[in-house]
């Protein structure tokens, strides 16, 4: 253990890793603070750069950029009432109300401090949860993997804040995209329409860049520019945070735990964690009437929650290759590219790399405090940059980045196509995240499904025979039926209250 820890330290204490991490932190802070540019987009645009870095430096950039972007989304949320990332949307109003009361320092300071605490709690969960789960996962057969993947996909549709039917349809669309190409059980060209470019299938990364970045530029074309940020002088940002920590330690812990759980659930990410934690904080608060008027309690809990989910989202990603959220979906792509194929054996064969990931998460979250404070102080200047100057650069990065992934122009076509698909889906209430998970997990689901079917000779029964498989199957089917139950319950409830009213 000590030896691997020293090895891990040696891995991360190279100049390449240190510079990559620092640059990615600044990049994440800037992108996250710009309204409309999400943490997922920041990470997706980073992938082409990671191509040219060593494995550890590549992961370092993703870890640093995603953690920082989730925090810095709080900045425009608090100062402008426009969340920089979806993960800050849940409490942007609350933070803005605090700014109007003259407590901008306290709101932003709580953002930095509890984000960092949440991030570190998330890493601890990753360190504690992953190895024992890896032990269990070693005995998994294709049946378990199939149900696990299906459960992941179903979770993604459950937590989507839209119609579950549309979410499932989005997931199927993603799976269908993953069918394209010759990488299938028979090795025959499937849905390629004779185009050689499609033989290799649709790369997940250009698809992600299209869905998250190009679609965002498309939306910007139709929405008015956000107002500029009023310049202001900040007092001490960290003052009072220790007092808040002591006062709201229980809320903070609850936020961390909820964030960790939601992060581990496949498909549910930081934005979901923030919504749930904010609602929970309001529900269990001793002074719920203060919520919405500039009360720091919800900020503490939700801020601790969304950053905790970032690290714990890596648990299923590293163990099974099932992404915990969209950022982890990108990270999985990078892991494969760098020869760190996700799976339980990663923890035994590449233990030092795993420790290096833990260490980088911890360092990124500690680094967040000074960099975050600096960012808050200069945010007014960065937010002066007009959208018409940022979006063109994003477009260029999309074009060059998607070209760089395979050094061919088809990547750019993919980005453009998925930009349109993402835009149309979003506009019509189809959750994009569900499709992304479908694309990323498609090959794995199919492989597990077809191999299981061949093993069972076409019979369905063996899918339920092993105990773990049966439990996972029950959970997956339950997740599928859950919306139906909610629907029935909603139908029954008004009838009952109506009946009660008439009998009275």
């Amino acid at each position, binding site marked *: 253990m000590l030896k691997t820890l020293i090895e891990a330290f040696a891995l991360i204490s190279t100049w390449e890793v240190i510079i990559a991490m620092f640059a990615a932190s600044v990049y994440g802070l800037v992108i996250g603070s710009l309204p409309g540019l999400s943490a997922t987009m920041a990470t997706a645009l980073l992938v082409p750069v990671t191509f040219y870095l060593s494995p550890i430096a590549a992961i370092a950039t993703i870890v640093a950029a995603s953690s920082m972007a989730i925090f810095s989304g709080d900045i425009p949320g608090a100062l402008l009432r426009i969340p920089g990332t979806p993960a800050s949307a849940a409490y942007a109003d609350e933070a803005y109300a605090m700014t109007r009361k003259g407590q901008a320092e306290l709101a932003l300071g709580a953002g930095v401090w509890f984000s960092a605490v949440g991030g570190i709690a998330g890493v601890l969960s990753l360190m504690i949860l992953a190895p024992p789960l890896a032990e269990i996962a070693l005995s998994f057969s294709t049946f378990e993997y199939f149900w696990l993947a299906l459960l992941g996909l179903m979770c993604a549709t459950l937590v989507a804040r839209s119609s579950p039917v549309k979410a499932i349809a989005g997931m199927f669309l993603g799976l269908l995209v993953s069918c394209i190409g010759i990488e299938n059980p028979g090795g*025959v060209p*499937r849905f390629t329409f004779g185009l050689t470019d499609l033989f290799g299938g649709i790369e997940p990364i250009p698809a992600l860049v299209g869905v998250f970045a190009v679609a965002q530029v498309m939306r910007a074309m139709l929405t008015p520019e*956000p107002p500029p940020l009023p310049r202001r002088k900040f007092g001490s940002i960290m003052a009072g945070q220790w007092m808040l920590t002591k006062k709201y330690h229980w809320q903070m812990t609850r936020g961390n735990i909820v964030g960790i759980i939601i992060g581990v659930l496949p498909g549910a990410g930081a934005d979901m964690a923030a919504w749930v934690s904010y609602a929970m904080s309001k529900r269990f608060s001793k002074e719920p009437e203060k919520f919405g008027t500039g009360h720091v309690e919800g900020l503490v809990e939700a801020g601790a929650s969304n950053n905790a989910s970032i690290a714990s989202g890596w648990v299923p990603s590293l163990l099974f290759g099932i992404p915990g959220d969209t950022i982890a979906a990108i990270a999985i792509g990078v892991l494969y590219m760098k020869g760190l194929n996700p799976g339980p054996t990663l923890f035994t064969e590449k233990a030092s790399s795993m420790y290096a990931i833990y260490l980088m998460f911890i360092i990124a979250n500690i680094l967040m405090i000074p960099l975050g404070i600096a960012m808050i102080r200069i945010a007014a200047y960065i937010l002066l940059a007009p959208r018409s100057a940022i979006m063109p650069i994003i477009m260029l990065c999309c074009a060059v980045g998607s070209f760089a992934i395979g050094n061919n122009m088809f990547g750019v076509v993919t980005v453009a196509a998925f930009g349109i698909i993402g835009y149309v889906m979003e506009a019509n209430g189809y959750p994009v995240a569900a499709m992304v998970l479908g694309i990323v997990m498609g090959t794995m689901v199919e492989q597990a499904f077809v191999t299981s079917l061949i093993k069972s000779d076409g019979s369905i029964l063996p899918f339920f025979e092993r105990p773990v498989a049966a439990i996972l199957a029950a959970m997956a089917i339950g997740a599928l039926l859950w919306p139906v139950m909610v629907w029935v319950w909603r139908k029954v409830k008004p009838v009952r209250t109506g009946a009660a009213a008439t009998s009275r």
Partner: protein
Amino acid sequence: MRLPDSVTGSFLVVLGAASAYGGWLLPPVPGQPVGPNVFPLVIGTGLALCGLAIVFGIGHTFEEAEELIPLEDGQAAAAPPPQGKFYSLRALLPPALLLFYVVAADRLGFIITAAIMVYVTSTALGAKWKLALPLAALSPFAIHLIFGKLLRVPLPAGLLPTPW
């Protein structure tokens, strides 16, 4: 771009049926009951069923309930933008520019193509020429420096090779 559910649902039914049929035509692995045909068949069927459900408005209640959930509405409410007849078509500009890049980059070279892309996007978003022109002149070189020089992505030189 908001289409009625019946349109998107019907599209999904057609797409699902087409992929199920396409999958059905594929040969199985020799000597096995299943192969590359099974998965598209299952997905296509599922997609078509979802499409049907959407056409009939199943699950629509969840969407309406969802629109209430962003309680205090995180986005600052802004005045509705002026709506011309072709206003919504502006959204297609970014993908169109990307396709322009695909077609033109090899002939014109990266710098020129990128400059055109930047200028058009920036102007479309409301920038004056005072901002758009210097941006279009400088940003391609900056991106080329990062991707072409540091990361060694083979960007096409075309008509205007970079000095490095």
